[in-house]
């Protein structure tokens, strides 16, 4: 796997998408874990923006204008940082 290009210090300040707040915009900073290939194919790639639309067993996000439902376990592998509104 590609090593994360983000310094450890910054990694600590990131939240996983599964814990992120509903209704807010985020920038995807790192995707890592066993499901990362699938996630990237679906559109969860580093540097893209994502808005979280709903919580739940499967969460709903909007990436590049497309609504996607992904399971919480997958969303845990997406690390995001907030985007200033």
């Amino acid at each position, binding site marked *: 796997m590609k090593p994360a290009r983000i310094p450890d210090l910054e990694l600590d300040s990131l939240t996983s998408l599964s814990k992120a707040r509903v209704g807010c915009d985020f920038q995807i900073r790192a995707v890592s874990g066993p499901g990362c290939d699938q996630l990237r194919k679906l559109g969860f*790639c580093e540097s893209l923006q994502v808005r979280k*639309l709903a919580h739940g067993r499967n969460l709903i996000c*909007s990436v590049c*204008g*497309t609504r*996607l439902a992904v399971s919480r376990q997958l969303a845990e592998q997406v690390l995001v940082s907030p985007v200033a509104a």
Partner: protein
Amino acid sequence: MTDRSELVALVGHPNVGKSTLFNALTGGRAKVGNYPGITVDFQQGSFRTPHGRRLELVDLPGCLSLDGDSPDQEVTRRAIHGEIEQLPAPDLVIAVVDASSLERHLPLVIELLELGKPLVVALNRVDLAERDGLRLEPDKLSEELGVPVVPLRADAGKGIVELKQSLRTPLPAPSQRDWSDTAARRDTAHRIAAVAARRATAHHETTSDRLDRVLLHPVLGWLVFLAIMFVLFWSIFSFASVPMGWIEAGQEWLVGVVEGAMAEGDLRDLLTSGIIEGVGAVVIFLPQILMLFFFIGLLESTGYMARAAYLMDGFMARVGLSGKAFLPLLSSYACAIPGVMATRTIPSAKERLVTIFVAPWMSCSARLPVYLLLIPMLLGGRESTAVQSLVMLGVYALGTLTAFFVARLLRGRLGPDEVEQHFMLELPSYQAPQWGYILRHVLDRGAAFLRKAGTVILGIVILLWAAQTYPKSDSDDPAEQLSHTVVGRVSDAIEPVVRPLGFDGRTGTAVITSFAAREVFVGSMAVLFSVDESDDEAETRDRIRERIAAETWPDGSPMFDIPAVLSLLVFYIYALQCLPTTAVVAREAGSWKWAIGQFVFMSLFAALASLVVYQVGSLIAGS
């Protein structure tokens, strides 16, 4: 052969509009629906470019990349590499992308570019991109990618001519470039997207987002879902009764014509109480079957189907399946064959096998005629449509719940997946239903049903009529004559076997004939129970249901009492009486053992359930 027409392949993510484009180019009839994963097999057609060249076109299942592992994506990969026997390797690829979401779609385009085949990009859904405020620059995109880019709106037929014009051959192969690693591919894609489709704002709330807030709400969403399911079944009972009346009237008129024109005799009897009665008894349920297809088409077309899959995921997980199994199972309510085919979109092999195994227990439309005959008998024919719909819902629920129960057992035995699978699904934007497509699909299915009525059902009805008319005896007593015929002898022979299930020999015979096709049961019953009355010309023709309901055992007790009708219902809920399904299961599961195991299991289960229901029911009724 050197002068075969060249093959063009449509490749793109699920639900971008490949099949829509296929239809627009070829005038074909590929199935279209607003759900990712409608197309699961390749489909061919052909068209002419403005220069008069004939090109073959192949529509492929959607894929996110060329290394996906579900069987539908494998079809696409194999087709592109020319590994499908009936299909040569494509000479040109049309990459269909969603203009409103280029960042997500370009990595696949780049992957296709690396194949080195001539490529044209169809920039579809420009209407949605405009709505989202994107600044599209097809020229820049074309420059960056080094291939022609044609903006279009496949569903409105806009840009089709331009696309055809761009397919001038021989097309230059794109300059060989190799990004070699997926990360580099993605970075390139994002850079190009930022140039060719600039986003004004990151997000703005759309109507779909607002609708989803209600329809995917943990409480409201479920209420709406249940309401939709109830309306579906209720309307099958109530709205369809009008056209049913017409069919019935037409049938009576036809009998009148035949009786007026022909002298009494075997031939006239064959026409009236054989063909018209038997086939008519089945055809009368055509409107209801069409309604079912119509509703499922409506759910698919509007985009609600993906939401239903999302809602059902939690529930399905408890039985070891996922939301991905919902569409295959729901379409099995219409017909198990497309349902089993649709399991190709399920990434987990084990989940797919289990879904295929239980899919036939989602009551298909071929069972509708049987249910619609039996349910009013159960209720004495007096209850309102609402009560009937509830019983119908119960019948469907029974099949479905047993299916889930078996799925759970089976999934437990198969063990977990080698690679853990997670739920992920694109939720497409809602859109107004595409009446044209829905109507065409409904008509196609109606035609298929009538073809079946005109072949299998007609054939069996004629055979059955002959079997219960010949050989003739010298006796004038209809009962004695009947026992002399083939049917009489067969039903005498099987009566001891089927009696514990609550059936007499004739019903047993009808059940056996329905292994050819379930609907045949209704036609067979109409023929088999029309004997007593056929010599009485003056008697008004009772509806077949009333006639059957009035049947008694030799001791005078009603033959179709509640335990017996329940037993029949249960049998039809569980029995797998559809050879085409078994054949498709064998192909899709890749194993005849699986298909035959399923058939044997379901048949035994049906007979056993029927036995238990009748015996227990009779005990309760007798006490």
